[in-house]
């Protein structure tokens, strides 16, 4: 399932992910490589973690504080395995092992184990201090050399320092040999802690933003009371309220109709966002969510790449072609058509839209069409409507105030397939010149 960065931004995924903040280096790497390839098991883990954090907040705070101190150690592990580790590598590993002592009792059920034997190699005198040096106590030879060094004259210095380094090098190789049998365990712990960190970050995000763990499976997309955090933030900033959306899609075509500016695009985007988040193993923004396995998401007619000498309509048809071909090939895709064929004359446009709806009815995929053409909805398996402008509006508004008077509730159609013709009202509300309004009304008659 590949969506471009631009699309992820548009549908609101990028906005949500900004709040995903792991603390350890490996956790951060997992976040960077996040992809929609999660499994049911991942979501199960997420649910469990959310419950765990809620019931034991102090414990998970303590774990988090410890994870913030983690540093990248895979390079040092590799150097030990190759026998080329430096004092700095030993320092990093010793510090990690000490941190492990703090973390292990807090995280034992996640498979994190302390490694006292490995720590002993790097801390033979059990100081438990996070510094590293090659102690004189490791080798009698070393002690002798260092004593000589302390009283050496300037001329003798260079030679004695060289002897010291030779002995230190020998000891380093020895330490590498001893540590080698523990490197696998060290590595495992590091990875496990990183994964734990990432899982905690996902859970924290869900708990802080009110997201839920979706159910996976079946052959119906069910989203009750879903919201879009990105759009919601904008709406609330202007003093409005985001209207939660409830929608169910079976395989085949579903159509949403509604007036202009009625929020049809938001429905499409929010649906795409939640399906994508679920597939990434993240919680979704809804009161209830059942999401089947989807192979690809297509957003048809997003203001996208132009060029190739094609118009908006041409580009849209290209996207449409790609989507339908893939849907045939792979099955179980999510196809989201935003006002298909609006870029051409209404007669042909409506015909294209109707035909496409009919075509998609036969697919295994889930196709959702937002349209304001007449007579398209009746071709589909299901029809939703956005309520539209509230009746109470009368006076002239600015263009940026119309939204405040929209009823964005999405409802299954009550059988009446006609589209509310609100365009006229909107023109009047925005305050087009009266004479023009008059002329338009003439056309209606």
């Amino acid at each position, binding site marked *: 399932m590949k969506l471009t960065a631009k699309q992820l931004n548009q549908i609101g995924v990028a906005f949500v992910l900004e709040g995903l903040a792991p603390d350890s280096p490996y956790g951060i790497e997992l976040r960077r490589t996040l992809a929609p390839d999660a499994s049911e098991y991942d979501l199960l883990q997420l649910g469990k973690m959310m419950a765990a954090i809620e019931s034991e907040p102090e414990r998970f705070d303590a774990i988090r504080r410890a994870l913030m101190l983690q540093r990248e150690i895979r390079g040092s592990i590799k150097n030990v395995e190759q026998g080329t580790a*430096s004092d700095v590598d030993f320092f990093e590993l010793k510090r990690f092992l000490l941190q492990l002592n703090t973390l292990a009792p807090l995280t034992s059920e996640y498979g994190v184990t302390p490694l006292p034997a490995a720590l002993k190699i790097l801390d033979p005198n059990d100081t438990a201090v996070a510094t*590293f040096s090659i102690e004189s106590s490791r080798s009698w030879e070393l002690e002798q050399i260092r004593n000589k060094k302390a009283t050496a004259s300037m001329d003798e210095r260079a030679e004695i320092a060289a002897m010291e380094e030779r002995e230190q090098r020998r000891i380093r190789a020895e330490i590498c040999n001893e540590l080698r049998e523990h490197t696998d365990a060290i590595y495992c712990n590091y990875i496990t802690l990183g994964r734990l960190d990432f899982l905690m970050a996902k859970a924290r995000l869900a708990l802080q933003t009110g997201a839920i763990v979706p159910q996976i499976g079946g052959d119906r997309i069910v989203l009750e009371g879903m919201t879009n955090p990105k759009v919601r933030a904008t709406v609330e900033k202007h003093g409005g309220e985001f209207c939660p959306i409830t929608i169910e899609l079976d395989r085949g075509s579903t159509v949403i109709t509604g007036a202009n500016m009625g929020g049809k695009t938001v429905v499409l985007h929010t649906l795409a966002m939640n399906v994508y988040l679920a597939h990434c193993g993240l919680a979704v923004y809804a009161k209830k969510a059942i999401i089947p396995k989807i192979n690809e998401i297509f957003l048809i007619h997003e203001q996208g790449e132009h060029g190739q000498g094609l118009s908006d309509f041409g580009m849209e048809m290209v996207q449409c072609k790609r989507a339908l071909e893939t849907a045939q090939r792979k099955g179980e895709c999510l196809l989201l058509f935003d006002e298909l064929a609006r870029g051409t004359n209404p007669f042909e446009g409506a015909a294209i839209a109707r035909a496409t709806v009919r075509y998609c009815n036969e697919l295994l995929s889930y196709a959702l069409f937002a349209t304001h053409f007449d007579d398209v909805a009746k071709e589909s398996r299901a029809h939703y409507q956005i309520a539209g402008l509230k009746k109470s509006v009368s006076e002239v508004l600015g263009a940026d105030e119309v939204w405040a008077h929209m009823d964005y509730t999405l409802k299954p159609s009550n059988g009446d397939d006609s589209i509310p013709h609100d365009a006229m009202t909107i023109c009047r509300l925005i305050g087009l010149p009266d004479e023009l309004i008059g002329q338009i009304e003439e056309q209606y008659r």
Partner: protein
Amino acid sequence: MGMCKNAGKTTVLNAILCAHSSEGLNVAITSIGRDGERVDIVTGTDKPPVFVKKGTFIATAEQLLSKADITQRIMDVTDVSTPLGRVVLVEALSDGFVELAGPSMTGELMDLIQRFYAMGADKVIIDGAVSRRSSAQPAICEAVILCTGASYCADRNKLIEDTDYVAELLTLKKSQRCGVIVSGELIDAVRSNVDSNVFCVCGALTDKMLRPLIESNYPQKTLELVVQDGSRVLASRSTYSKCLARGISLWVQNEMKLIFVTVNPRSATGEDMEGIGLIDALRQRINVPVYNVKED
């Protein structure tokens, strides 16, 4: 702070370290840029590396640790990266020679200094350069030592003038007056604020900013320009003297403390300016003590 390579800075460093350790003080040392190279790649001089005493805290790049001959204890690895690896904090468990390559950004330097004090250092010494003089700003440093030498340039007079200039910038006096804070172009601020003759400049003061003031023919009046501290003045010596001639003086919000100046009369190419009374000439011009690196 050295004015050039081979200014004898390392010699001064070694002397300071020695003096401090004999007083029983805990010293920490780091550098901006690389120092103490055994053989100077540019001019081929055998440069002495820095000699530290047991107990000194050092911040230098990872790759230089293997070249140092001190017995080391690794205290921490910072996130600061340099061309020679990450900056590592080390405690010297024995006396020895070490090469320094520390952080290059002033923010990183400030963090490092705090860490040194937290580790128990009494004094922090920073090996710096005039080309990086923002690292000497009062917010970071309490005092500055300026090192100059024959290697700076073959022209004795230019050497004296430039050294005097840097010393003067480092000893600019604190302004007692309030002024207009300049946002945008300096010349515009001066033109639009006819009644004021004190202007506070944020950030660096460059030739480009001063030139319009010198060249314009607006009515002559004395101007006081206030900068944060002496390290922010990046103007050239000639521009500065023209300013003075025009009645434009420079002041600072925070004074810097120049303790003394050292001179290396011997250049990298072997010339010796000692006999020409270089040191005495500088002593006459500069208000702080001037020492000959070789003798004193």
